[in-house]
């Protein structure tokens, strides 16, 4: 078993706290993504697990054996933890094949294993003799993954492996990588600043902000029930409206909504989370509740700005519609909400 357990990890760099009391369990064979803005400490977390740095406090253990914490610290090269850096970090003076076999013991059936992992990440045998600079960015990332997987590590760490790739290549490389990880059944941690990437990557998503894990759980559950309004906004387009709660329902300028999850800490002003997918904007309604003040096309979406009621704050709604020409500034519209809301302190 290779369950990775982090307990109370704290790390300071240059006198500044980078990680504070981080606790996280990654079950054996599962995939966890850690998502946060730059400077949130997510890369430092990976470096501690890989053994490039030591935590100030806390413990890291893998399959019950302590890797770091207390008096003992297993050096990076004896941890059996694979690591794929942001740019792949392929050795420029070695060919693809030499890169992949770099971590294999001399006694191993090296050529067979190289062919095996190359096939796993869809690197054809014609590429094996090339040098890293002769590969595309996506190929480099897949070779880097093959190199990390070759010695059969118990855990693989991926540090923003797709961020250097352009949009089209990113999606296809990500699919190839996830497939390879699934087949090898290795415990994986992915670090990213991309919410969609984090939510689509695996079994668990952990949100990190200011050096602390603010929420962790299955992606669907976390997206459905963000524990704070900040997390809700971080995870995707969010519309937060002032609301009052009574009789088990939330009342906003758009009407009354059932409460899906309640995070009110005390009495006082509250706000309700609505996702754009819950909204419909009807400009032909005979019972308008809003005025359209601006319409801006953003690719496949319309950015519709509406003001709710008299003197209400303008609300910007990313709206997907098949008939964008029907919307224009000055129209009266009825904005309605399907489903429940999540309530937070304002």
């Amino acid at each position, binding site marked *: 078993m290779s369950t990775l357990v982090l307990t109370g990890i704290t790390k300071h760099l240059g006198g500044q706290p980078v990680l504070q009391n981080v606790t996280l369990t990654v079950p054996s064979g599962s995939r966890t993504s850690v998502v946060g803005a730059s400077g949130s400490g997510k890369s430092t977390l990976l470096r501690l697990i890989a*053994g490039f740095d030591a935590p100030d406090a806390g413990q890291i253990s893998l399959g019950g054996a302590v890797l770091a914490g207390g008096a003992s610290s297993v050096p*990076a090269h004896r941890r059996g933890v694979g690591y794929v850096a942001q*740019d792949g970090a392929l050795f420029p003076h070695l060919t693809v094949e030499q890169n992949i076999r770099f971590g294999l013991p001399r006694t191993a059936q090296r050529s067979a294993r190289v062919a095996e992992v190359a096939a796993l990440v869809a690197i054809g045998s014609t590429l094996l003799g090339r040098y890293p600079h002769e590969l595309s960015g996506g190929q480099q990332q897949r070779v880097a993954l093959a190199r990390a997987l070759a010695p059969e590590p118990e855990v693989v760490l991926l540090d923003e492996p797709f961020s250097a790739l352009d949009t089209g290549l990113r999606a296809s490389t990500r699919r190839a990588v996830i497939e390879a990880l699934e087949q090898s059944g290795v415990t994986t941690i992915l670090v990213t600043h991309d919410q969609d990437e984090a939510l689509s990557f695996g079994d668990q998503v952990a949100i990190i902000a200011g050096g602390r894990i603010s929420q962790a759980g299955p992606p669907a559950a976390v997206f459905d029930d963000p524990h704070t309004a900040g997390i809700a906004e971080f995870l995707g387009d969010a519309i937060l409206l002032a609301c009052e709660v009574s009789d088990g329902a939330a009342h906003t300028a758009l009407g009354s909504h059932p409460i899906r999850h309640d995070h009110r800490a005390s009495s006082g002003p509250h706000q309700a989370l609505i996702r754009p997918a819950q909204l419909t904007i009807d400009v032909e309604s005979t019972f308008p509740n809003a005025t359209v003040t601006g319409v801006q096309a953003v690719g496949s979406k319309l950015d519709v700005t509406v003001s709710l009621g008299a003197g209400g704050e303008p609300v910007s709604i990313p709206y997907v519609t098949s008939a964008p020409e029907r919307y224009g500034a000055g129209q009266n519209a009825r904005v309605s909400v399907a489903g429940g809301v999540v309530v937070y302190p304002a």
Partner: protein
Amino acid sequence: MAAGRLRPSLLLVAVAVLAVIMLLPVGYVVAIGFQVGWPTLAPLVFRPKVGELLVNTVLLVVLGVPVTILLGVGGAWLVERTTLPGRRVWAVLLAAPLAVPAFVSSYGWVSAIPSIGGIGGGLLVATLAYYPLVYLPAVATLRRLDPALEESARALGLGPWRVFARVVLPQLRLAGWGGGLVVALHLLSEYGAFALIRFDTFTTAIVVQYQSTFAGPAASALGIVLAGLCLILLLGESVTRGTARYSRVGSGAARAAVQQRLGRATPLALAGLVVLLVAAIGVPAASLLRWLSIGDPWSQRELPGAIIQTAGLAATGAVVTVLVALPIAWLTVRHPGRLPRFLEGSSYLASSLPAIIIALGLVTITIRVVPALYQSVFTVVLAYVIIFLPRALVSLRAGIAQAPVSLEEAARSLGRSPLVARAQVTLPLILPALGAGAALVGLGAANELTATLLLAPSGTRTLATQFWSASSSVAYSDAAPYALLLIALSLPSVAILFLQTRKRVR
């Protein structure tokens, strides 16, 4: 910290020790000045002879630097931005004088026109030898300059000459001033070229003083004045460089620039280039060929020995310099910070001072403190390290930067201990830079004259010192083979410099 990893603090201490060693010689000269005291020094500094030297030296800089800037920037513009016929050939030829050591070029002139001398002769020889130091950075700047800037200026209604004056020239300011200040430092520190035509500057006077009073206070006094002049120039350079940023903003490949049509000015430009190159290369080459054809200079007994001794000293200097540069470059690239930058800057400062001051400091220090090291191989090699360290540093910094620490980490995560990771990944990657740095230092050391003359063990014969003893005793024919070998030794480093300059930034 993982075991086996060299702690930055240990490295820092090592580099600090190296920086102190680098600054020791010049520090000693200055310390002696203080020790002797102003009452003793004042009459040595304020005397008619020093006034004359000061006038000569200042005139040399004040007149010579603008001329080199004019020649260098003008030449660069002609080959990079005009329709001049044969631009590629001219581009190479204009850099070629750098391969002729200034004292060899001076020998070419004085052996052709024995009456040459004075400020006129000094200016002629020095500007011809040193204008490439402005030309090369100017070419590099013009190549990196985004043509879109010039095109925008044209689109805004400026004519070609006004575009040059208002857009191109300001961009060349850095290259012009930077190159000019490097030329000024060379003018201050040049010994051989001026001594051959009997033109007195501070540097030649220090050598004369040294030979007559043997590192007495007079030589130290002159050395302090010279070091002061150099420090003023170095300060000037760092101020001009400032925080100005002239590089291309934005990405994408730069396009070829629009070429200015020369039209009827073409014959004039060609004639100017021919005159310049005849003076800079033609005259020294013709003299050299003439002296080579007289008698049988290749059969001198000392020639093979000089080649072997030069190779030995230069190779030792190259290896030691690279070994000294390695920790400094490693620290500044891998552990950047204020203190490492300060230490690196101190090493550069020591290297920027004239070889004569470094040599004088080493002579003084060895005689007074460790007489056993006076005129020993150790001291010559130390001088080479101090003089040529920047060549190795530049090369090594680039090399280490291309071997990022993330590669070592990747190797560690694949089961290599930190030391093995460094040996298997980083070492192969920086090997070319180590080789290039050592080559540049070795080639420079093989041509070094001033410090070698003062510091080498008696009986040492290098190509430069043999050339010197022959040419200064007017045995021009005997000097010719050494001159040819010295030029041959300069060619590779000039070629490397030239190719680096021409590299387009992508």
